[in-house]
């Protein structure tokens, strides 16, 4: 029997550093550290601890799973950049997994996966058994229709009565999904921002140019 796939999953898309090492179905190590800031300094040492506790070398990894958001823009880039560097160093695939998919992993489908977006908004994606709708950014008051739906999520500023918690810790779900996809998925992980960059064209227009 060939050795089981060894997958490292991690995420810094919100106020945390999360990492997990899985081998086949088995979760070898799982860590979740809440933190408001300092993810850039903490992430790689945390990953090293996970590898050490799992008794694994970096060269044993089959693939990397990384959370691509949505969430904190800088936080997402911290993990995605590290994952792309690691993938290049180890010559293994890195698979981007959205927070929507990670939360919905192991849930009855279809399910609305929701993530706090702050500024009185929420990120939302409807995930079916085989189909996935476009992710959206919704005004908070528009979420009323979700009351009669199957909903999964954590850490909303105001909760929904019918919200389910994810079946797996975030980094574990990311690693499981990466394990399923890494042989076929080609694209490198890219952040899922949904919200556009905060930038406006200059207010004072240039003068009319006369010949």
């Amino acid at each position, binding site marked *: 029997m060939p050795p089981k796939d060894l997958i490292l999953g991690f995420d810094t898309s919100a106020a945390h550093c999360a990492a997990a090492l899985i081998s086949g179905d088995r979760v070898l190590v799982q860590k979740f550290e809440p933190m408001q800031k300092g993810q850039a300094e903490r992430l790689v040492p945390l990953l090293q601890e996970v590898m050490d506790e799992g008794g694994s070398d970096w060269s044993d990894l089959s693939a990397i799973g990384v959370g691509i958001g949505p969430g904190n823009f*800088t936080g997402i*880039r911290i993990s995605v950049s590290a994952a792309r*560097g*690691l993938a290049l160093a180890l010559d293994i695939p890195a698979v981007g997994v959205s927070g929507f998919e990670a939360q919905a992993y192991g849930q009855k489908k279809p399910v609305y996966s929701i993530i706090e977006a702050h500024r009185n908004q929420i990120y939302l994606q409807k995930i079916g058994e085989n189909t996935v709708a476009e992710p959206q950014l919704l005004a908070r008051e528009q979420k009323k229709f979700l009351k009669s739906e199957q909903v999964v999520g954590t850490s909303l500023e105001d909760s929904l009565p019918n919200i389910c918690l994810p079946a797996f810790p975030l980094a574990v779900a990311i690693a499981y999904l990466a394990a399923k996809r890494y042989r076929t998925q080609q694209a*490198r992980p890219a952040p899922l*921002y949904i919200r556009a960059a905060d930038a406006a064209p200059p207010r004072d227009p*240039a003068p009319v*140019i*006369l010949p």
Partner: protein
Amino acid sequence: MNTTLTFLGLESSCDDTAAAVVRHTPGSCPEILSSVVMGQSELHADFGGVVPEIAARAHAERLDLCVEQALKKAALTLREIDGIAVTAGPGLIGGVLSAVMCAKGLSIGTGLPMVGINHLAGHALTPTLTDDLEFPYLMLLVSGGHCQFLIVRGVDDFSRLGGTIDDAPGEAFDKTAKLLGLGQPGGPAVEACAMSGDAAQIPLPRPLLDRPDCDMSFSGLKTALLRARDLLVAKHGGLREVDRANLCAAFQQAVTDVLAEKSRRALKLYLSENPTHPAFAVAGGVAANKRVRALLETVSAEFDVRFTAPPLALCTDNAAMIAWAGLQRYRSGARDDMTLSARPRWPLDKTSPSMLGSGKKGAKA
């Protein structure tokens, strides 16, 4: 440490994503095996300046591609690299962070050592990469984000003689281009437009020349240019091409005059230390301006000091300078661990009082 070293450099502190490979054997000249730069001008063109979030988004998805290209052009694999150097500040934090995290991934995955480099040190040490200058030399670093005179005494030993107390000249060139309806980046656009203009037609101030030190200011110059433009627009109902060319020429001349005169003062201070092989080097994007370059060369000749300006590709942001600075810092024992932070502010000279952003977060540069 007398062996040949090959370093990979990563840079993304403003709007250029870059990776490069540099090799050096003690006793011979350093060799740039590859230097890849992916610019972002088109992404920021509509905004009249670099938008930090847009820059960060692009860097995060390009850094590993740049590294792959740099390795491919150098015909090397990561196994043949001895260490990784990464810009860890100062700069736009989102971009700096992406490179630092990518470098950490590369380092932990390969086991290669990593050195965090000050972006300004990269520019300041470039003359030792291109022209074999000897320490101490005088350096004018003049770009879109920085403007300072440094005496470079060693790989990690810099004294700042003075610098801008507000905007950098490159930023002022961009703003000028924006005010006059020229394209971005503003430096080349203003320079081209100034060719047909007459600087004498528009009086603009030469800020801080009345002060004997090496400090500069360019923010008031932008305002003066705006006022001059508005007068002309009001008079003619729009901006005539001839007036636009004159404004460009006047602005460029004012910047050049300030840089030249402050260079004289910096040279006097530098020469008072009796350096054995006196040299004046200029780097940064504004050093690409032919008028600036020519006048600084003239000033150097007045003082009988050797003048060097690295080739354009090594004057503007690039990763070869980071790889080179990292290689030298590594030789002198520098190493960083996986807790390396990205720093938006990071002055090169650790002792001189700060000139910019002296708030609670400390000096910018």
